[in-house]
């Protein structure tokens, strides 16, 4: 396998973006990433496009071709991937794989989603389509908030995790978003009281424990070592990009307090990168719900099983803690345009490693992204380093 580098990144603001079409957002992100890398559209050989819901919400499929044509990409394959909330991460993973295996020297990964033009109930419906329909579980009326609430309550019962631990995640990420002008809740801080007294969505989780519905697009240019050196600038190497599959139904999970695909992808990523969790300086993790960040800390090996709540409450993951997590605001406060999220995580980590983030971490040489699709059915972990 060849060495792989991230030469350019871009992210649109996340939030309610009015009448912006998914095509226009995706093209803006693609152009932005190419400009950041200083590569022309004629030089891009492969396109990987991540999206989840455009087929259902906008009636638009065939988006890889639509976006490739809009970007004037003519050299090689344009491929769309769908892995629910991990769609953007999978697009990045495949682009990195194409460069690593020598299929191309310059690949573009784009992720985009438009959701705010639909009602909450429509979006809830579409998200529920990421569950295994044959299992019968969606018939119960279970939602994704419900799924993570089941995990949250089990985690509380088994390990003594508290609602305060979950609120701590929500507060930390909302505070972080106040430094990120692209975040959906930039300029909208909240108090502890408001978080803890917000309306119930799926008990025990409340409104501020849940990520918002968002529009947005993010992109990255992935290149070979020769191209990275020729382009100049800070070298950001992809030490590892791994993907793992897991259950798409609760009935197939080995435990309700851990996502097996995260453990598997993380283990493979650490082995490939020759680093351990202790070497990770910063991380962008998939906090679709506050409880998911608690579980992520454990599955990524940042702390032991059951220790996620106290670990976060200790301040270890704050901006000035030993390992800041979700300095962007995370999905909870940066926003979660489903197909864009995995690439937005890459955007944030790359800016931190370059030292060009809106609020730079005190130490950021190695960063990790953790992107989870559905009930943990698809997981992508990337480990990036400034080299």
């Amino acid at each position, binding site marked *: 396998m060849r060495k792989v580098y991230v030469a350019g990144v871009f992210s649109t603001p996340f939030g309610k973006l009015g009448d912006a079409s998914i095509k226009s957002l995706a093209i803006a992100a693609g152009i932005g990433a190419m400009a950041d890398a200083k590569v022309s559209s004629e030089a891009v050989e492969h396109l990987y496009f991540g999206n989840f819901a455009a087929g259902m919400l906008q009636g638009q499929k065939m988006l890889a071709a639509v976006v490739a044509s809009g970007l004037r990409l003519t050299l090689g394959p344009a491929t769309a991937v769908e892995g629910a909330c991990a769609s953007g991460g999978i697009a990045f993973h495949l682009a990195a794989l194409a460069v690593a295996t020598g299929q191309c020297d310059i690949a573009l990964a784009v992720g985009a989603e438009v959701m705010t033009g639909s009602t909450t109930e429509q979006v*809830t419906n579409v998200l529920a389509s990421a569950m295994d329909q044959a299992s019968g579980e969606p018939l*119960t*009326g279970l939602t994704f908030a419900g799924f993570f609430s089941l995990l949250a309550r*089990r985690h509380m019962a088994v390990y003594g995790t508290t609602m305060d631990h979950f609120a701590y995640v929500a507060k930390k990420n909302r505070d972080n978003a106040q430094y990120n002008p692209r975040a959906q809740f930039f300029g909208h801080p909240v108090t502890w009281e408001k978080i803890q007294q917000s309306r*119930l969505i*799926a008990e025990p989780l409340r409104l501020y424990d849940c990520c918002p519905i968002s529009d947005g697009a993010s992109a990255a240019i992935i290149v070979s070592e020769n191209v990275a050196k020729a382009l100049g600038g800070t070298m950001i190497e992809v030490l590892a990009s791994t993907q793992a599959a897991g259950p798409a*139904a*609760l009935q197939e999970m080995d435990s309700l307090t851990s996502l097996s695909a995260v453990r598997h992808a993380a283990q493979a990523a650490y082995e490939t990168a020759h680093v351990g969790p202790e070497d990770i300086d910063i991380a962008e993790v998939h906090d679709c719900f506050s409880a998911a960040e608690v579980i992520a800390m454990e599955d990524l090996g940042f702390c032991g099983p059951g220790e996620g709540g106290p670990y976060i409450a200790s301040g270890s993951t704050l901006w000035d803690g030993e390992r800041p997590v979700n300095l962007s605001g995370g999905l909870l406060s940066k926003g979660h345009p489903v197909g864009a999220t995995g690439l937005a995580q890459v955007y944030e980590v790359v800016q931190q490693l370059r030292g060009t983030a809106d609020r730079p971490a005190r130490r950021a040489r190695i960063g990790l992204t953790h992107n989870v699709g559905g009930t943990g059915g698809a997981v992508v972990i990337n480990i990036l380093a400034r080299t």
Partner: protein
Amino acid sequence: MNYVLYACQRCHKISAVAEGAPFHCWACQSTEGTMIENVSGTVESFTVLHVAPLHYLDDIPYGVATVLLNNQVRVVGRLSRFTDLDRVTIGTVVHISPDERYGLVLHPLDAR
């Protein structure tokens, strides 16, 4: 239509099957199943939904629980509408019945 419960002989997962229809395990595709009756288990975790998909808006608020059977197989079901949701806890014993609309319905023995 009447539904009955089948346990897969290969993977032991539970399926609700329309009476008279052939059994087909949702998890492993096996067609070897055993009809089961009087199935009960204990609540492993539960949630009460206040935001619902389109077809369930009239049900709000409603409970969904994961239940572990004696053989540790997990099933997911809708808590019966007669359930006092404030009295459901982890460990609550429920009787499980197949349901055309909700897949599986859970009837708590001590939380009505």
